[in-house]
């Protein structure tokens, strides 16, 4: 029976379990951790570019249809050294920030109200998803009607795009707060506003962050469309440049702008990711699997 005894060591904990446990044990240096977080990204990007290059080499499509990586990166190089790019990026980012901030305020308010007030939920709860599905261009006429050709028209479209998504995130988060925590909160004296402040919002925070992330995606996409609403030529923008690149059939430029959009997305995701990891560490649900 002694042979029957199993010594649990590294080799016997395999697969996902190993992945799960591994992280807790490895004590790595700061640089080591940075590297282990970076190389898979670099590898993934490298593989993607390699496949792209191979497809180009096969001559599957003419280069004016599918430009080779080298051409795109050289265009990207030109693009990001132009003033137009930086001005456009600045304009777009500013609009994104302002529009998203407004959407967050409105989305949070609506979400918190709808989730907790029965009559509001019955009245407009189901409207939120419906509004979320409304494409941005449907709002353009209304935006112009209300705000003429001003930046507000853009914000209007962005807010209508993002706020429902954020509100839905908040509602979801509030719906799944463990009842015990709500009861505990009320019992220790949190009522009304303080219940929101000290219990409801922190308890729903993970879901709210997830909702904000989805909301950001909606906001950004709405902005890309909405920036065509008001092409104030003094203010070039990424959204306008994207559309023009397409209208002028500038495939390399279009792809350069896509890369820029991806990079912006990555940066924003990193911010959300940091917030999320901070919350998960606190809640003790970090490192169940990946970083």
């Amino acid at each position, binding site marked *: 029976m002694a042979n029957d005894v199993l010594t649990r060591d590294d080799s016997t904990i395999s697969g996902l379990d190993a992945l799960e446990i591994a992280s807790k044990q490895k004590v790595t240096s700061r640089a080591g951790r940075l590297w282990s977080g970076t190389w898979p990204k670099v590898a993934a990007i490298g593989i993607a570019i390699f496949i792209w290059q191979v497809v180009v080499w096969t001559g599957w499509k003419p280069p004016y249809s599918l430009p080779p990586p080298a051409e795109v990166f050289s265009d990207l190089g030109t693009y990001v050294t132009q003033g137009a790019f930086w001005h456009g990026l600045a304009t777009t980012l500013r609009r994104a920030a302002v529009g998203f901030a407004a959407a967050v305020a409105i989305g949070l308010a609506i979400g918190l109200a709808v989730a907790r007030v029965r009559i509001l939920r019955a009245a407009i709860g189901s409207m939120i998803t419906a509004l979320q599905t409304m494409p941005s261009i449907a709002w353009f006429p209304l935006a112009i009607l209300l705000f003429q050709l001003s930046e507000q028209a853009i914000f209007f479209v962005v807010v209508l795009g993002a706020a429902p998504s954020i509100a839905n995130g908040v509602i979801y988060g509030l719906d799944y707060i463990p009842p*015990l*925590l709500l*009861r*505990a*909160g*009320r*019992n*220790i*004296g*949190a009522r009304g506003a*303080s219940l929101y402040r*000290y*219990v409801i919002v*922190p*308890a729903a*925070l993970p879901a709210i962050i997830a909702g904000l992330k989805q909301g950001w995606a909606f906001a950004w996409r709405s902005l890309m469309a909405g920036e065509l609403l008001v092409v104030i030529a003094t203010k070039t923008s990424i959204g306008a440049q994207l559309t023009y690149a397409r209208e002028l059939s500038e495939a390399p430029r279009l792809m350069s702008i896509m890369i820029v959009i991806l990079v912006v997305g990555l940066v924003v995701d990193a911010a959300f990711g940091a917030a999320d990891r901070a*919350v998960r560490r*606190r*809640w*003790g649900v970090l490192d169940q699997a990946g970083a």
Partner: protein
Amino acid sequence: MTSVALTGITKVYGRGPNAVLALDQVSLDVRPGEFVCLVGASGCGKSTLLNLMAGLDRPSGGSVAVEGDSTPGLMFQEPALFPWLTVEANVELPLKLAGVARAERKARVAELLGTVHLGEFGDRQPHELSGGMRQRAALARTLALDTRVLLMDEPFGALDAMTRDILHDELERIWSERQLTVVFVTHNVREAARLSDRIVLLSSRPGRVISETRVDIPRPRRIDSPEVAAVAAKVTEELRKEVGRHGQ
């Protein structure tokens, strides 16, 4: 003069054929300053009763009346700590909500954590604590409440005997200092005899009050004293009869 008055309380969970009659015509008066222990088989409705007293749920029938305009503090059967706050912040929150000034808050929190022997663990998150430590943190949070009535649902269930004995003393001290009214649920009949003025025995499904035992042993008491053992034996006997009758 009652601190908590339950009159003909009935509580039904669910609807239709699945409905559970958790409490049936429970009446109970607790005097101000009284320490009452509730005992009864698992699932007989003790937690339900505490929830009703705390106003966190509404009876299907009957009425609940509580002294003063503050709600009773309730220590839940599970720790119910807020996972996003450190232990310290969990204990501090009731004080903050009651408007206690910052400096005083810090002092009170330190004192309370000391009382439950968690002084070194104030900066931990709840998930970093052991089961018993969480229960003690929850106790500290409940004790931070400035209420006249304290409801406690098996507060020492996850603690070793030594720690529990120490906390019995602490609870008794606080109870008499603050002149609290305490309703205390426990499965440990000795604990009930050690702490309470009166032991109320509930039957199960439906929950009814089937007997009340006055505990007149002079304080301070010791849990291993023969008097406590005698009361415990009596209550145990009744409990055994009730459980036996029920075929539980």
